[in-house]
């Protein structure tokens, strides 16, 4: 068991100390990290590099801190994870993409199915078995509760039939957390369940979706009577909506935190390439940095509130709006301030900016569109009169 030396007096001090240790490790292991300090032309290459990097971070211990010991972690507050992503990105080294997914999904598995977490999390943290998430369907996007992918109980298995779409990181995923309908077709929120499905199960086909940036960022998954062990249920049957809503809190917490760290790295890169003596340039950079700080401070607080066991209300839709705004601002700034490179250069770095520009257009769609978030704020935070349907 790795040892942090002296045990700091409180959680806050431990997080501060952890940051120092991570930062020192990154500096001392510059040679090991160098191969990961780069952009990748394809999603597959990026995810493969991420798997290698996950293994290194797992073996060094940093990739396990902040996750519970019962599930293969090394314990400590979740902020230890946040510090790792922050320091990696700050050093110019992208954190493995898989952490984005784990930050979103794992807390729900820990809360609703500790036994599944204990069994499956270690191989996820080490990069051996990567996860994806399957919620949306062709006919169930913003109206998620209308989803139809059906799971029928048959002895100690569920038989799954239907389709999922828009699964991030799906081209290299071994498992997918899948929201399925176990109740009647018209049961809406009540008849849903969450299943962790191994994607090598017979009857499952995963097809990449070529995203607007030319990369296979997403997948669609077809289930043709795939048999899934019933003990892979996350929460009880019929509890799927509660699991999904619980999970969305972490999309505004840990996931948003990874993304803000990434935006910070992108902005640092941009700052190194532009002339800040020009007022217009400085203003644009300043506005982008302010948007990143607004997101960072907001979702950093959400991370802490979730860590303290608070159940967060509709006001976390504010975090999601800030995320979409900051994601798009930094890429728009790159377009505006390095226009000729953005338009005409085939350098890897410039290609990566273009890829990110298209990728971040989805930041106001995934996890509930910007419009859905504003409706939640209007209804449940401001208490405005409801829209007519």
């Amino acid at each position, binding site marked *: 068991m*790795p*040892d*942090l*030396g*002296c045990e700091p007096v409180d959680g*806050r*001090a431990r*997080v*501060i*100390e952890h*940051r*120092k*240790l991570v*930062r*020192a*490790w990154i*500096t*001392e292991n510059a040679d*090991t990290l160098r191969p990961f300090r780069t952009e990748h032309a394809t999603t597959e290459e990026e995810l493969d590099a991420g798997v290698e990097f996950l293994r290194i971070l797992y073996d*060094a*211990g*940093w990739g396990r*801190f902040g996750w519970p010991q019962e599930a293969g972690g090394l314990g400590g507050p979740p902020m230890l994870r*946040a510090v790792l992503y*922050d320091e990696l990105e*700050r*050093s*110019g080294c992208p954190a493995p993409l898989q952490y984005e997914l784990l930050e979103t999904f794992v807390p729900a598995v820990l809360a609703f199915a500790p036994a599944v977490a204990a069994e499956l999390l270690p191989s996820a943290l080490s990069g051996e078995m990567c996860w994806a998430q399957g919620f949306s369907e062709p006919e169930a996007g913003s109206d998620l509760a209308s989803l139809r992918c059906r799971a029928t109980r048959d002895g100690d298995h569920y038989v799954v039939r239907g389709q999922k779409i828009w699964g991030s990181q799906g081209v290299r995923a071994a498992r997918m957390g899948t929201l399925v309908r176990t109740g009647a077709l018209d049961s809406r929120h009540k008849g849903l369940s969450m299943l962790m499905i191994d994607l090598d199960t017979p009857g499952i086909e995963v097809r990449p979706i070529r995203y607007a940036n030319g990369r296979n960022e997403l997948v669609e998954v077809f289930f043709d009577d795939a048999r899934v062990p019933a003990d892979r249920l996350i929460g009880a049957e019929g509890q799927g909506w509660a699991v999904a809503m619980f999970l969305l809190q972490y999309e505004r917490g840990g996931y948003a935190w990874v993304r803000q760290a990434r935006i*910070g790295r992108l902005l*640092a890169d941009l*700052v*190194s390439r532009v002339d*800040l003596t020009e*007022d217009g*340039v*400085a*203003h*644009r*950079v*300043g*506005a982008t*940095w*302010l948007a990143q*700080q*607004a*997101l*960072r*401070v907001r979702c*950093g*607080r959400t991370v802490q509130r979730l860590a303290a066991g608070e159940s967060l209300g509709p*006001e976390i839709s*504010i975090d999601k*709006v800030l995320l979409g705004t900051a994601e798009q601002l930094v890429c728009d700034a790159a377009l505006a301030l390095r226009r000729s490179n953005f338009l005409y250069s085939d350098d890897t770095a410039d290609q990566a900016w273009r890829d990110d520009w298209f990728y971040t257009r989805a930041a106001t769609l995934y996890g509930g569109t910007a419009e859905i978030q*504003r*409706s939640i*704020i209007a209804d449940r935070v*401001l208490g*405005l*009169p409801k*829209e007519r349907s």
Partner: protein
Amino acid sequence: MTAGVSDDLLTAALGAEEIGLLREGLQAVFVKSGDTDSLAAALVDLGWDDVVAQVPEAVALLFEEQGYGGAASGLLDAVVLTAAGLGDLPGAAIVYPLPGPGGLFDPAAGTADGRLDFAGVARANGSGSIPETLIVPVVADRQTTLVRIAGSALTPRPIGGLDPDGGWLEVTGTVPLDQSATLAVSPEGWVTAVAAGRRALSAELLGIARRALEVAVQTVTARHQFGRAVGSFQAVRFRLAEAKVVIESAADLLRLAFRDTDPLAAATAKALAGAAADTTLRQAMQVCGAMGLTWEFPLHHGYRRATALDGLLGDTDNLTTAIGRYIGTGPTLPQLEPFGKGNGCRATHAPNSGSGSPKCPAPTPATPTNRPGGR
């Protein structure tokens, strides 16, 4: 009673009920007290000094309620003077410089040929009277100092301008520096004072924004068109949701700025609070319709006050540009720390500390502590 943006800031030290009582007390004070003198007396009655002594963040509540109530006072001067270590200068008013030669964290007036060349604004003391003494931040030889000048030498002039109820004084002029007395304030003292002033101004701006949003929500809920509440139209709802987003995110920054003495935190909070007030008032003016643009409706007062306050110690636009320039000066891009900092984790971005590529890893000294195994 609606919770304000500063509630979370205070819950660590005060109970919700206590905060509510303080807020009500302050609201009563700001409604009743027409000038700084009667305001000061009312605050003494409320025992406000004791509250601030116990909970320094209570300053946020004071200024938020001042903004919410639309009151004008010299309270900002008291905050700035106290933070500069000059709390014992009765009758003195700070002269807030217009954008000039000072830095991001120490805005100040310039000097030339031994003369102070000044353009700024001050708040009237007491019942609108001209202050006897003016405290002017001055930058000379790259050092910022505070100088004391007799009010008569700079002849402050009451002005109406955009915010005629704000008690503003225009202060312009050229004064030989030997007619002034340099006050014993370190350059860091002025940086600290500016940060304190920016936090107070942020709270006041957010109070104004909170009031405007409340008014707008009430109006669009009550008013019907096409047989339904105006606030049930998506376009209207989204505008006010947007206002809520910018208010709450600026409030989070202000919360952090009260805990983080890095002057960048206060500057960031001020830039976001100014933008939040501007956005909220514009959205409110749109959704309240023509009624919202009448003299009797409160929105124009809010817009006037917010825009005038935004101009103090760096308006949003200039702060944004200055921050953009500043964040490129260090070896790594500065990041505010919501998880706290200390023990050597600070100051990775000290001003003027080199111009290396932000992509370089931060040069961190090795620590002797044990590390997790297996490099």
